[in-house]
């Protein structure tokens, strides 16, 4: 834990922290390249990223291939802003912890996923007023240049809706 405490001191106290989340399965260089370039001339923000085996060399961000879930949760909860792919883990965790969150969906046309479900998920949650979405570089840069004004969405409970819990409980115990 010593190493973590040290990095926590250096990373969390000098500036506001953006934590970047791209899942554990496939790299997401399109997003990371935009962020690495953007942060290169920011003194107010620093970026920590979980990069999922990306082979790129990012010069301006603190990158980890993979973070253990408990360490990941610490970074997630302590960050000022979360930028992520539109994975359900990211979206739900953002809502559970009432974080300032912007998602950038992975797209098949850039070979970033097997299908475009992240795009459709993002659209769906955006329509419900539960999510900030950037669909391209320009939209992401607009969010990045106005990070203070990103809104947190309403916090959700850490459990499923009662109707689903009841249905499962009845099936399990019959």
């Amino acid at each position: 834990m010593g190493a973590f405490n040290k990095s926590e001191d250096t990373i969390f106290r000098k500036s506001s922290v953006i934590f970047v989340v791209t899942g554990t399965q496939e790299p997401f260089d399109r997003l990371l390249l935009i962020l690495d370039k953007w942060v290169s001339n920011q003194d107010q923000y620093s970026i920590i990223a979980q990069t999922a085996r990306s082979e790129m060399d990012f010069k301006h961000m603190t990158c980890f291939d993979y973070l253990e879930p408990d360490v990941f949760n610490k970074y997630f909860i302590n960050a000022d802003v979360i930028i992520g792919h539109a994975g359900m883990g990211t979206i739900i965790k953002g809502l559970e912890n009432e974080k300032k969150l912007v998602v950038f969906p992975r797209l098949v046309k850039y070979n970033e996923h097997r299908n475009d479900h992240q795009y459709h998920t993002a659209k769906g949650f955006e329509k419900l007023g539960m999510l900030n979405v950037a669909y391209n570089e320009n939209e992401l840069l607009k969010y990045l240049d106005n990070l203070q004004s990103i809104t947190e969405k309403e916090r959700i409970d850490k459990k499923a809706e009662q109707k689903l819990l009841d249905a499962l409980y009845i099936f399990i115990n019959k």
Partner: protein
Amino acid sequence: MKKILAISSSGGHWTQMRRIAPSFSGNEVVYVSTLKGYAKEVSTYKYYQVKDASAWSKLNLIILFFQLVKILFKERPDVVISTGAAPGLFAIIISRFIGARTIWVDSIANYEQISLSGRLVKYFTHLHLTQWEHLTNQKTQFSGKVL
């Protein structure tokens, strides 16, 4: 008391599994997922780590399948529940050989259509749930969302 085996991939699948966990109350639960570190999140329960595999990694799928055969024949759960993806599909197919009742909760991420694993598992599972009302049909039901 029933024995439940709750199995999912990492990330959003696991997050959704944690959100339906209150429905397991009063029963014995064994968790299975693909990251070692999740054991800490369910430290009062038995936890197995299996290979992370998807349709993109055929060899890993074979390894995963045999890991699950071993776990399921050892644990012999009464109920197997999954929120996806490949590990849950395999576990539910194997479970038919040990007589478990099985539940599939398709991820809320699948808004346009049921996931590939979800479409395949439909032929093996007893309760097949989607989280989107417009995706229901004779076999696939809607009983609410994980949110």
